[in-house]
């Protein structure tokens, strides 16, 4: 399948079907690995490949697997398919179009760690994803890929598909466990980490959908050959680009190349203004950052992060105050309410933005925004609350003039410029 690992599966319109998956060589890797490799070697291969969790935190996958106590009698694999980070759609698409690829990755992970029971938590709103996954699970059982004595070996794995009920916070891994145990999705204190005390109090591996979809290729190609591909990553690109969609490119591809070469650039007559490189919880980048490589370290160095690798691209028709207000509103809506800085901070920020957007802002509000943001930083119980300050702070740093214009005039400079005759707009 050439250089691309996941995209070829996404481009096919039949790979959700077992027959088509098998014809394309599906499950061959799992069959070979289960028959010929030792579990410890599978973990070592995944470690050497450099694979890091694709759900947002970026933790090395092999190391996560190695944390699980070998002698634990009961341990679980939980797949996080609750993807709801704004403008991230890769896991959904993988579930819809390549559920068997996920199941193959799960079989390999379960074999490596010695797990016999797995749960896939899928967001309720992903109706097609769940139907396709449930069909794939049924086919896999019928084909001997799941259940007892997989491929005639002494490996067993049972898989249960579970759906959420509409709560972004359920994607946070400890909240997901709470939800899977039939409670409100509210994060648990860590430590203990799920690797030690997870689902039903047992050691639990929690992996993201995309992460597991990389595993068959790592073992098929070998970790070194896989790593030489970049390593590959799926970027969800949305917003003001001409070709929004999923792009598979090596980690480290510059933002400029992704937007202007792959995603078709901006609409005619528009200028680049800003982008979120890792979903709405990552700090906004500006024109000055267009050549930053989209990779963990380089993005951290400019104060942002790769997160779920979702690029949200803004051209000059976007009002930054409105955009940040909308992200604040999202986190306010989705806050689980457990801790004060997040529960109160998001509401307070939303109130200030409401004033700013309705022409009732005061200059002192800019300091107030910074003050609330500082009060939330490092003080929230889980990553959700910590998602607000980065982009807010970046917007105050890079686009302060837009806030000031709203406050001074009670109007939006972007809207005014768009409404003005074309000559004035350029």
């Amino acid at each position: 399948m050439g250089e691309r690992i996941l995209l070829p599966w996404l481009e096919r319109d039949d790979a959700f079907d077992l027959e088509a998956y098998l014809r394309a060589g599906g499950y061959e890797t799992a069959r070979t690995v289960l028959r010929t490799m030792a579990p410890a070697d599978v973990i070592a291969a995944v470690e050497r490949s450099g694979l890091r969790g694709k759900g947002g935190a970026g933790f090395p996958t092999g190391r996560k697997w190695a944390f699980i106590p070998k002698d634990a009698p009961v341990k679980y694999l939980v797949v996080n398919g609750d993807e709801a980070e704004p403008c991230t759609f890769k896991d959904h698409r993988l579930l819809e179009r390549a559920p068997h690829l996920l199941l193959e990755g799960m079989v390999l992970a379960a074999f490596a760690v010695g797990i016999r029971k797995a749960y896939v938590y899928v967001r309720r709103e992903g109706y097609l994803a769940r139907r396709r996954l449930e069909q794939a699970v049924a086919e896999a059982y019928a084909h001997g890929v799941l259940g007892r004595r997989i491929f005639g070996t002494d490996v067993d794995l049972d898989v249960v598909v579970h759906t959420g009920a509409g709560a972004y916070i359920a994607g946070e891994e400890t909240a997901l466990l709470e939800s899977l145990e039939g409670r409100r999705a509210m994060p648990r204190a860590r430590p203990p980490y799920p690797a030690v005390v997870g689902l039903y109090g047992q050691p639990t591996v929690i992996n993201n959908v995309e992460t597991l979809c990389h595993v068959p290729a790592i073992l098929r190609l070998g970790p070194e050959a896989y790593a030489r591909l970049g390593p590959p990553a799926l970027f969800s690109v949305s917003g003001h680009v001409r070709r929004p969609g999923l792009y598979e490119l090596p980690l480290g591809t510059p933002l400029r190349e992704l937007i202007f070469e792959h995603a078709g650039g901006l609409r005619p007559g528009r200028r680049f203004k800003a982008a979120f490189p890792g979903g709405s919880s990552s700090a906004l980048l500006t024109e000055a950052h267009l050549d930053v490589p989209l990779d963990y370290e380089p993005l951290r160095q400019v104060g942002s992060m790769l997160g779920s690798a979702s690029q949200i691209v803004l051209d000059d028709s976007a009002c930054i105050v409105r955009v940040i207000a909308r992200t604040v509103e999202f986190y306010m809506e989705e806050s689980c309410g457990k801790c004060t800085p997040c529960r109160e901070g998001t509401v307070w920020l939303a109130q200030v933005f409401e004033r700013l957007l309705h022409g009732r802002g005061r200059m002192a509000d800019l300091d107030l925004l910074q003050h609330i943001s500082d009060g939330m930083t490092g003080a929230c119980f889980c990553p959700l609350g910590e998602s607000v300050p980065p982009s807010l702070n970046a917007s105050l740093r890079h686009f302060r003039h837009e806030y000031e214009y709203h406050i001074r005039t009670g109007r939006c400079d972007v809207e005014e410029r768009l409404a003005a005759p074309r000559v004035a707009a350029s």
Partner: protein
Amino acid sequence: MPGLSEAARSEIRALGARYEQRQSALLPALFVAQREAGWLPPDVLEAVAEALEVPLSEVAAVASFYRLYFLRPPGRHQLLLCTNLACLLNGADRLRAHLEARLGVRPGETTPDGFFTFRTWECLAWCDHAPMMMVDEERYGPLTPELVDEVLARYRAGAGPAGRPAEPAGRPGSASRAAEPGGGAAQGGG
């Protein structure tokens, strides 16, 4: 029997048996109850608590936490308009105004004829089709006011999801867009 039919109760008990702990089946059990009763009034919550043998307080806590459970009777079709960033940047505000005008209700409300419950929603992970909305289990996008009208008319005519809207004037296809099943604006079935 108040609350739920025996069939629903036994379906819920069977769900409970799929998990190491019965309470794990609470989320799916509430969907079984909601499918049967249309929404989750107190006697239905009680029936779920009984069938799963978990405390009613747990059932009520869960039902009130997650957004897809109805604690009031909803309309016949759920219309969710995404207003998160990708959709906002592509004109979700205009679509929202259009829907409010066409439906005569504001987000969170049900049309007087009980046909649609209209809600604005957070990201529905179809951002490369922004702006988009979901009616029941079916997605529509990129939306234009004309496409919205067409979809509403189809549901009102009882055509439902089987009646697919025409393919919207395509933007150049990216890998993912070009590869949607059916290649059209709507997606579902499967």
